[in-house]
């Protein structure tokens, strides 16, 4: 399996085009990784500015800034951009940069596919965003439940469907590349159980992507034909079933949430041992826990649908399976805790984000556990409690892990150390504001505020104001990150090959910045 790969990369070896051509035609995993990361950050700011408008509208009761229909467009596109445009491409960017360097491969296995899977993404999001100017953007929620998204849609369905198709193709190609690279290009001696956990989690994530992206493609195609070609997959008057839509969507949707968190598990499993100066506790149980989470994620989808009128037996099945997911998730959290236990801990910025990740992600896991209880979910479902839950797992979970990764590897990428003071300011501002932003949402949901509403009853006014203030502060804090990255690229203290004394892994054996081509001859692992 682990063949020598020197001959695979020979034709563009040592050659690097200049200017725009370098980026358009590049097949270099580092260039493509960089583009993915920048793209994700731009999308993050785009989706973020929509969130700022949403929070401004919700600052006070009453309609102040936008009308209800535009409000729905903003929430929908915000969700779509954050999921498909920010979190997922950021992880793909990290995979591109780090997997070859971590397994001692010269590049990704399918470099041209790699170029292609990045370059179709900007088109997907151009299509999606252009709908704002062409009759209105999708306004049916990022979950696009039929028939609101079909017969009752505002004409944006076609834009939406084509954009999602392109994103899906990009993800599938990216996933194929990750799997082929990991299976074939590991350095001699790197057996599966010697791979860094980061590589393992991306490996499993890639399988999830290949399994569920076609399901998403299928369901949006059915949406398209229902809307424009008179089929009735989801239209009861033609013999279809709107609830069927939700089953198919969530069969994609639940694994999708794990697509957005498993890589995060891989990241903090890399950073926490580094800054605890102690090996990861329970490596093999981490691998098994990740695999069982991935498996279970296929049989819990209907926990998003407890109120749709499922039969009792179905509700029980999905409740039990969902509760079961807490077991492997717990194992992971306990392992991180045990890794830190009796370590020699220091608090560099990647570690600060990683610790915040573990604690805040666990809080999101707790609310997940509460939501899993079907009878109580009748109260929580579709309220701000759910909004709090998934922002804890996605923002303080996935996003914080991405920040941890970025700070961890920035020295390797740029060859410079980042400005620690600014980075710490980014961390503390984010940490405080993110909790002000999302924690009170639990209270709002419990007190009865539904999600996806542009205006609310007066008893929700106080918390909404706090939440909005937290939101603006969090939004602004992210600009600090931009400043750190730009400064770090421009200059700064020179980074040694291994800037973190506790770090392990092949990526630290090459100089900083990592040369354009690394591991043209595979290293030997023993």
């Amino acid at each position: 399996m682990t063949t020598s790969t020197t001959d695979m990369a020979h034709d563009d070896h040592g050659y690097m085009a200049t200017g725009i051509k370098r980026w358009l035609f590049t097949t270099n995993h580092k260039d493509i990784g960089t583009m993915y990361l920048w793209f994700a950050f731009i999308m993050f700011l785009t989706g973020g500015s929509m969130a700022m408008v949403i929070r401004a509208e919700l600052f006070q009761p009453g309609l102040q800034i936008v009308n209800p229909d535009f409000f729905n467009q903003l929430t929908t596109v915000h969700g779509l951009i954050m999921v498909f445009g920010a979190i997922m491409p950021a992880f793909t960017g990290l995979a591109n940069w780090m997997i070859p360097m971590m397994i001692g491969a010269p590049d990704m296995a399918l470099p041209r596919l790699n170029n292609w899977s990045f370059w179709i993404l900007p088109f997907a999001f151009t299509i999606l965003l252009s709908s704002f100017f062409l009759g209105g953007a999708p306004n049916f929620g990022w979950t696009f439940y039929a028939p609101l998204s079909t017969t009752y849609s505002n004409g944006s369905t076609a834009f939406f469907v084509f954009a999602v198709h392109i994103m899906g193709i990009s993800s599938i190609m990216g996933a194929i590349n990750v799997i082929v690279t990991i299976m074939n290009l590991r350095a001699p001696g790197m057996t599966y159980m010697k791979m860094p956990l980061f590589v393992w989690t991306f490996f499993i994530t890639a399988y999830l992507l290949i399994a569920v992206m076609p399901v998403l493609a299928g369901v949006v195609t059915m949406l398209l034909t229902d809307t424009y070609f008179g089929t009735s997959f989801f239209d009861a008057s033609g013999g279809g079933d709107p609830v069927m839509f939700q089953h198919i969507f969530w069969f994609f949707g639940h694994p999708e949430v794990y697509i957005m968190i498993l890589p995060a598990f891989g990241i903090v499993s890399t950073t926490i041992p580094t800054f605890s100066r102690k090996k990861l506790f329970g490596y093999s149980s981490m691998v098994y826990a990740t695999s069982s989470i991935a498996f279970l994620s296929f049989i819990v989808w209907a926990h998003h649908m407890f109120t749709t009128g499922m039969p009792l037996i179905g509700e029980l099945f999905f409740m039990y399976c969902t509760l079961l997911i807490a077991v492997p998730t717990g194992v992971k959290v306990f392992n991180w805790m045990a890794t830190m236990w009796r370590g020699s801990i220091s608090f560099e910025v990647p570690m600060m984000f990683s610790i915040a990740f573990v604690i805040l992600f666990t809080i999101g896991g707790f609310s997940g556990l509460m939501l899993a209880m079907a009878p109580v979910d009748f109260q929580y479902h579709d309220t701000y409690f759910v909004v709090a839950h998934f922002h804890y797992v996605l923002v303080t979970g996935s996003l914080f892990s991405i920040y941890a990764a970025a700070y961890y590897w920035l020295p390797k990428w740029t060859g410079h150390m980042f400005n620690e003071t600014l980075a710490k300011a980014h961390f503390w501002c984010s940490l405080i504001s993110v909790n002000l932003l999302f924690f009170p949402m639990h209270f709002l949901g419990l007190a009865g505020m539904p999600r996806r509403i542009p205006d609310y009853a007066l008893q929700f006014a106080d918390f909404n104001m706090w939440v909005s203030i937290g939101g603006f502060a969090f939004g602004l804090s992210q600009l600090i990150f931009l400043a750190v990255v730009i400064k770090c690229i421009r200059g700064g203290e020179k980074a040694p090959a291994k800037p973190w004394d506790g770090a392990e892994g092949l990526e630290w054996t090459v100089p900083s910045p990592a040369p354009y081509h690394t591991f043209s001859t595979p290293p030997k692992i023993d």
Partner: protein
Amino acid sequence: MRSRNLSWLLLGVLFSSSTWAESSINLTEGVTGVSHDVYDLHMLVLYICTVIGLVVFGAMFWSMFFHRKSKGHVAATFHESTKVEILWTVIPIFILLAMAIPATNTLIAIENNDNSELTIQITGSQWKWHYSYFDQDLDYFSVLSTPRAQWDNLSGPGEEKGENYLLEVDKPLVIPINRKVRFLITSDDVIHSWWVPAFAVKQDAVPGFINEAWTNVDEPGVYRGQCAELCGKDHGYMPIVVTALPENEFDAWLKEQKVAAIAAAEAEKASLAERMTMEELMTLGESTYVASCAACHQANGAGFPPSFPALKGSPIALGDVSKHIDIVVNGKSGTGMQAFGKQLTLKQLAAVITYERNAWGNNTGDVVQTADVKAATGK
């Protein structure tokens, strides 16, 4: 020193949590047997999570304070222990069982729809609820009654917001206490969700399908909720209000409604003979239009194309009267345009059609009378 402060902080958080039950940051206990069970389950999981959180975060903070490099702590070398791994796999399974068993019991109770004494069909449509009492010949629509001037601050400060801002309706659902009331929930257009937190009832209204739910309220009172599934533009503006009355008052209320229904039918008949002037029709038409049509077609008739067409200059409003009457009375299935024949009186229908044909520069001069609507539709 720092760890001391931290433990005070944690204690503070814990203490304040004991006061959660009373204030509005927690789930309501509600007024039904089921809602109490649901509340207890909620508190059970909340406490379990709090305890696990204290242990895990406590251990993490402990190592952050005592096992840090700056204090000269040297890292241990252990990195696995099968015993510990088995322990923290098995213990959570037992904790989950302790949660799953009461949850299962509550769920079984929630799903037991048998032996109800009253059945009400609830139909959601964009953006109102329709309540129909089985075997009682009684049905009506329930819509938001907060005036637009209170919520629309887009062009000015707007009116002061009332106490039940956005949680008030013109005609609440009325049910008796101490009787098992069954709800059959469905929709005419997109998916809505009927939710009253005090009953712990949330059930999706799915077009073409009927879902069941039930409640048995302990205390008389007014209970408020909202639509809980995104259903389009005015999803935030379709509240639910339920008035629970003692049994005898409920029975009296039912009788009253029947008397009122008979009176309304007679008025409807009488209106057939009536011939209204253009002015009368336009006045009634405008108020009907604002109440029933402006949500989609806008007060100025411009609509929100392409979802909701403009009526100003629309070929139907300017063209054949019978087509116009037809679409207003029978609606158009598969679109937001509902069959208003069920919702408005003949007089209101005549007035609103006249209004649409003569407002905003649609100067057709046509006058539509009650009898014309009747004749065109056989309503």
